[in-house]
């Protein structure tokens, strides 16, 4: 196809590299250097989308990030992306895009019926209806939901990868137009670390569309020279295609670099996008300005564009979006567009809201033969899917109405300018305060909050000379404040200076009709908010800007109101008869433009979502078919099924083997803390509920740790290694928390205590050998022959060599069996485990996992903190009164026991439960009632914390926390079931089901 609107020469496209692409199924061609928007315009395609609510036909409004209309579904299949802004999509060969939010086609869209019904569905209509009958709301809602939304999300996982980058710099420059480039040059020359980022594919900003001269060079050449100089500076990083997205506290900024979005797909191993997190000492914001549309009737027709954008398309992309152009403006800037378009061969007329504007640029326009209708307004736009013409009338004396005859003008393009809004988004995110500038009729930065400077158009400097100067001074100053004195501030380039005539703010262009009649004055193009909607919201009392925003949804689209917010505020101010600054702005929030979820996630997905911690014996477990359980970040063997064994069968086998012969468990994950110093015992007295001073060296003791509120928060066995040295063990999940807890008390409350804590969790691999033959197995692996109960009694520790490794062996038992916990330096863990396994063969040694461990400990009534406790349980509730040393003095949490609630009689207490049916295993978490009722509600008196089938008991067992539980031993209670079946009858028992006297462990 021909590119009907392509100019014969000029532009920054590469005519040697034609590119073909498809939009809505049709093939077109463009050139490298085009955006999807410029290429569509080159092909005279203006209708590109349908609006959110009314399904109005829409075209391309802008040439940049602020685009509210031209959102497309880009790419197909797993790589498809909704809501992509056509002016920011770089063209590549094979690009496929589709219009959105229309059915069956863009040209013929059933949803456009909404436009017909628009009077029934003004802002906020849904709050007023769909309430009857109440039961139908969910049906109405489905219809609303299906109508809403724009593009379609992908339905397949993303094939691309994303990456992160953390960076620190002295000066971050956001935006690389004239102001930004000067700032980067000035800062860079000082030797400071500079990052300069611009969202566009090419650096240069407005200069890429400009036609003047800088230092006697065409702007683009000046840009190239500046970039060459920056590239030669080793401490300067130049990042095109990089949007500064968020400006957070303490000069922390995020940036999205589109590394490969301009390619059909990323090269192998190249991330599609890279998300930068930058800590900058100083920031220079040079983000330019965004043009405002004028608010006239049907200003949303395809072919109505922003004047600056039209100029960009003409100069930068060599595209003339229309041949017969009406420029509609309230300020001088659009005259440049008019002049450049006329120069490119278009027929141009200017409709200026101002009366008799004067100045060089106006003279130049006249000189170019352009007709200027001053003091005029556009009162109608003709054509639905493309502008075919307009009507204009004279403004009346007040400027708020029109008068005189209507003149129609045929045209295929309207280029409008309502003035410029400095791009203060990042400034505002940094908590800078805005000021309303009456001359610009726009908000500009006032007081900085962060270490930041705004320069150029984003600060309100609309003249090139000023922008260059701003940039140079701010760049040098920023470097200086970051500790780098510039050797010399770069000379400020020379440009022709000009003055601009004043602009005339007209927030709603009069049409001769009342608002809301005859046509629509669009404010927020994307969310279909009109001036009449704002009036309605105000009328109904939504007078705060924030209410106005939320009631009408102004500024809540993907463009976040870049082209609409200020106009909306101004209209609200008029309605309130208040000055615009008194009305205030809504809050600017990150990101500046939408940021891909995947990029924020980076490579933190799949196995990198969260580290998996592995023990020294992990490979062995894998090789022996273990199933794993996630415990915190750890992967722990859960059970080791043999063949097709179910979990139930495997656990039965593992339990029985351990009870009758010998089993082995990888217990390496338990936390271990080395505690040293003369005050260690005194310290433990405060940390634990029981007393430690008299514990003999070499002996072990179980301890409970409480929070100040008296509730149990960790437990474990601690061993006195030497007079002033202890080895504390903690739960797997609690290891880091407990170390932090100890350090907190030592560093903040008792700095005078001489105690040092060091985590040694990972120094040791721990193999728990449990069962009647445990001693035999250990004996086979050590020369130490004093393993008998006299020489090596229960609850003591001994150092010895086990299977050739130096070991600390603890005679402690979490199973109730004769047990040795063999700790060896981690490097030997695998070998010693293997040796234990070999040595145990003749006893049928059985590796067991956490599930079996749980059964074994539950049979003995040993608790697991976090399972049998939940942060609301005291030691007394657990029946562990014996561990609370009431006489030793204070300890953490003790005082809380004296509070009325902790001494209440009807607290929940740990008990055992036996089901009437020995095969019924209760559900952990199931609730317990004293009396059943045919249906809820039922009064609950406790719940099941642990429940298993106990192979040694030959029946199910359970632990539970039950109100007044110990008084109820022998009572019958009920456990209702979720499936509605008969509640399960249970008897309350002591929470110990096996070897109540505890002889086996001591043997």
């Amino acid at each position: 196809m021909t590119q009907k609107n392509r100019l014969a020469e000029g532009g920054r496209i590469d005519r040697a590299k034609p590119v073909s692409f498809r939009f809505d199924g049709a093939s077109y061609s463009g050139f490298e250097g085009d955006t999807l928007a410029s290429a569509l315009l080159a092909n005279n395609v203006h209708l590109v989308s349908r609006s959110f609510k009314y399904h109005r036909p829409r075209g391309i409004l802008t040439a940049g990030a602020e685009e509210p209309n031209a959102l497309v579904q880009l790419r197909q299949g797993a790589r498809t992306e909704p809501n992509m802004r056509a002016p920011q999509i770089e063209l590549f060969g094979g690009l496929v895009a589709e219009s959105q939010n229309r059915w069956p086609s863009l040209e013929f869209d059933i949803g456009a019926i909404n436009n017909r019904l628009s009077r029934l569905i003004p802002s906020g209509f849904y709050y007023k209806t769909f309430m009857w009958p109440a039961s139908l709301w969910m049906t109405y809602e489905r219809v609303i939901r299906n109508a809403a939304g724009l593009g379609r999300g992908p339905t397949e996982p993303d094939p691309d990868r994303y990456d992160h980058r953390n960076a620190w710099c002295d000066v971050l420059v956001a935006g690389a137009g004239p102001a930004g480039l000067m700032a980067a040059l000035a800062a860079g020359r000082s030797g400071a670390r500079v990052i300069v980022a611009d969202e566009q594919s090419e650096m240069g900003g407005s200069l890429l569309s400009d036609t003047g001269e800088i230092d006697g060079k065409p702007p683009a050449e000046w840009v190239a020279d500046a970039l060459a100089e920056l590239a030669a500076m080793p401490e300067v990083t130049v990042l095109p295609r990089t949007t500064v997205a968020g400006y957070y506290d303490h000069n922390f900024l995020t940036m999205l670099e589109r590394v490969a979005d301009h390619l059909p797909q990323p090269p192998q191993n190249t991330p599609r996008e890279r998300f930068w997190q930058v800590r900058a000492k100083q920031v220079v914001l040079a983000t330019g300005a965004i043009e405002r549309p004028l608010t006239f009737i049907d200003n949303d027709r395809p072919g109505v564009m922003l004047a600056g954008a039209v100029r960009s398309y003409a100069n930068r992309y060599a595209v003339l979006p229309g041949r017969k152009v009406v420029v509609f403006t309230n300020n001088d800037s659009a005259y440049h567009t008019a002049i450049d378009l006329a120069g490119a061969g278009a027929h141009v007329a200017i409709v200026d809201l101002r009366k008799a504007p004067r100045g060089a640029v106006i003279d130049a326009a006249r000189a170019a033969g352009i007709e200027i209708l001053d003091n005029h307004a556009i009162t109608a736009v003709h054509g639905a899917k493309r502008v075919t013409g307009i009507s204009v009338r004279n403004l009346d004396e007040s400027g708020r109405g029109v008068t005189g005859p209507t003149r129609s003008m045929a045209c295929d393009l309207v280029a409008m300018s309502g003035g410029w809004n400095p791009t203060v988004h990042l400034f505002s995110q940094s908590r800078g305060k805005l000021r309303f500038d009456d001359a610009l009729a726009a908000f500009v930065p006032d007081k900085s909050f962060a270490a930041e400077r705004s320069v150029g158009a984003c600060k309100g400097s609309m003249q090139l000379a000023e922008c260059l100067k701003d940039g140079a001074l701010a760049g040098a100053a920023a470097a200086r404040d970051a500790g780098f004195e510039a050797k010399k501030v770069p000379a400020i380039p020379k440009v022709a200076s000009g003055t601009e005539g004043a602009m005339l703010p007209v927030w709603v262009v009069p049409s001769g009709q009342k608002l809301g009649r005859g046509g629509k004055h669009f404010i927020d193009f994307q969310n279909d908010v009109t001036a009449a909607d704002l009036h309605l919201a105000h009328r109904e009392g939504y007078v705060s800007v924030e209410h106005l925003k939320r009631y009408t949804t102004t500024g809540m689209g993907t463009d976040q109101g870049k082209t609409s917010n200020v106009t909306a505020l101004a209209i609200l101010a008029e309605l309130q008869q208040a000055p615009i600054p008194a009305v205030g702005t809504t809050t600017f929030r990150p990101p500046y433009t939408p940021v891909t979820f995947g990029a924020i996630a980076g490579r933190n997905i799949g196995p990198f979502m969260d580290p998996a911690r592995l023990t020294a014996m992990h490979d062995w477990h894998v090789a022996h078919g273990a199933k794993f359980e996630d415990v915190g970040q750890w992967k722990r063997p859960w059970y080791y099924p043999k063949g097709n064994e179910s979990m139930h069968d495997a656990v039965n086998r593992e339990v029985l083997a351990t009870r009758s012969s010998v089993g082995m468990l990888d217990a390496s994950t338990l936390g271990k803390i080395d505690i040293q110093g003369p005050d260690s015992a005194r310290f433990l007295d405060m940390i634990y509920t029981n007393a430690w001073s008299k514990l003999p060296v070499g002996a072990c003791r179980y301890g409970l740790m409480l929070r100040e509120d008296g509730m149990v928060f960790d437990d474990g066995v601690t061993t006195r290694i030497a007079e002033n040295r202890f080895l504390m063990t903690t739960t797997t999940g609690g290891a880091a928390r407990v170390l932090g807890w100890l350090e907190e008390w030592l560093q903040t409350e008792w700095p005078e205590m001489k105690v040092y804590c060091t985590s040694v969790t990972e120094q040791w691999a721990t193999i728990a050998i449990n069962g009647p033959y445990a001693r035999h197995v250990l004996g086979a692996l050590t020369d130490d022959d004093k393993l008998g109960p006299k020489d090596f009694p229960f609850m003591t520790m001994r150092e010895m060599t086990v299977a050739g490794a130096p070991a600390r062996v603890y005679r402690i038992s979490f199973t109730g069996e004769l047990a040795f916990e063999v700790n060896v330096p981690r490097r030997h863990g695998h070998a010693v485990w293997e040796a234990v396994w070999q040595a145990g063969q003749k006893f049928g040694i059985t590796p067991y996992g956490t599930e079996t461990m749980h059964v074994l400990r539950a049979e003995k009534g040993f608790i697991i903190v976090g399972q049998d406790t939940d942060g609301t349980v005291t030691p007394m509730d657990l029946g562990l009164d014996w561990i609370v040393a009431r006489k030793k003095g204070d300890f953490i949490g003790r005082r809380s026991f004296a509070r009325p609630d902790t001494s209440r009689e009807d607290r929940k207490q740990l008990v055992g439960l036996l089901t009437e049916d020995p095969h019924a295993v209760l559900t952990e978490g199931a609730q317990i009632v004293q009396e059943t009722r045919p249906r809820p509600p039922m009064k609950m008196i406790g719940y099941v914390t642990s429940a298993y089938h106990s192979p040694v008991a030959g029946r199910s067992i359970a632990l539970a926390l039950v109100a007044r539980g110990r008084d109820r031993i022998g009572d019958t209670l009920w456990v209702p079931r979720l499936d509605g079946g008969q509640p399960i009858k249970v008897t309350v028992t002591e929470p110990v089901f096996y070897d109540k006297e505890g002889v086996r462990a001591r043997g």
Partner: protein
Amino acid sequence: MSKYSIFSLARNALSYHEDWQRAWRSPDPKPEYDIIVIGGGGHGLGTAYYLAKEFGYKNVALLEKGWLGGGNTGRNTTIVRSNYLWDESAALYEHALKLWEGLSQELNFNVMFSQRGVMNLAHNLHDWRELNRRVHAIRLNGIDSEILTAAQVKKEAPIFNVSPDSRYPIMGASIQRRGGTARHDAVAWGYARAADARGVDIIQNCEVTGLTIRNGKIEGVETTRGAIRAKRVGVVVAGHSSVLADMAGFRMPVESNPLQALVSDPIKPVLDCVVMSSAVHVYVSQSDKGELVIGAGSDLHVSYSQRGSFDIVEGIMGALCELVPMVSRLKMMRQWGGIVDVTPDRSPIIGKTPIDGLFVNCGWGTGGFKATPGSAHVFAATLAKGEPHRLAEPFALDRFHSGRLIDEAGAAAVAH
């Protein structure tokens, strides 16, 4: 109050919507009221409404320092459910849920309460146990709740990855089908309109700057719009509760932490229910407008700035893209924060204060939106009678002295 309906909408369409009334008046404060409610969030507005409607109070003022709903009411992820563990909580939140079920009709304002179901995922055995405990308790309290297998999760929310090979595999979930979402702003506006219609003075841009207390009794408030007298004052200011308590000279077990949320750009429906995962701190739903509304975890530091630290957003994004791989190419359109008033047991504080006549309703933390109607209703009763409503009683401030906490935090709960 002119009634909202499809007919009034049609009628007004004929007059180009030029005849709609203000949803609420904007009166100047009177010198004295019977009751002053401080805080124009959903809870405060609802309190004012129920005072007028249920308890016949005609002379009530609601004072809001900024704009109605500008606090957490206007910035939450709108999840509504009543599946709480402890009896006291379940009773309170279920009271709220029942009121939600008729709220649009009651207020004549469509608050878009959408009972699309709320799912809580379990990723490991610990989660699973806790989930069972909850579901059993909830059911025995007479509240709906079900357990889903991973396959059923996939059916309810097909975009979720239920592969067992995932780093945090989905073992299953609980679902409360009566739970869902509501349009947060509409809740504030609907209550405001209905309260105004019953004579409540709703006064915006009126910040309470001091409390007038004599002999341990409240006598009125000082505001940026002058002093106002009242013998009963209810403080419902969420994140600012400590500030008001400080004016009254007492301290509370509350910390104000940032909690963040974000939305994606709007897309056609892909998710029909609310999904939450406490293990990875993500919760997500899709609004009626099409954005995915995503909540993140909260920061641990105190802040009144309505913004949190970015690493929290980064953290949840990894989890979200792992749980829901197809959202990877969607985009974060906007992010924001709120100031949540967190108590040590993650349960609210409702009732008396050390000052006679001064009542407080706060501590809803990361999860009070769902309670709005219930909280407002019991607080109105408390203010009206001067004694705590039956459902509010367990939530008294003095539970921290006695130790009788209602520990929704202890049992590894998600509070949103």
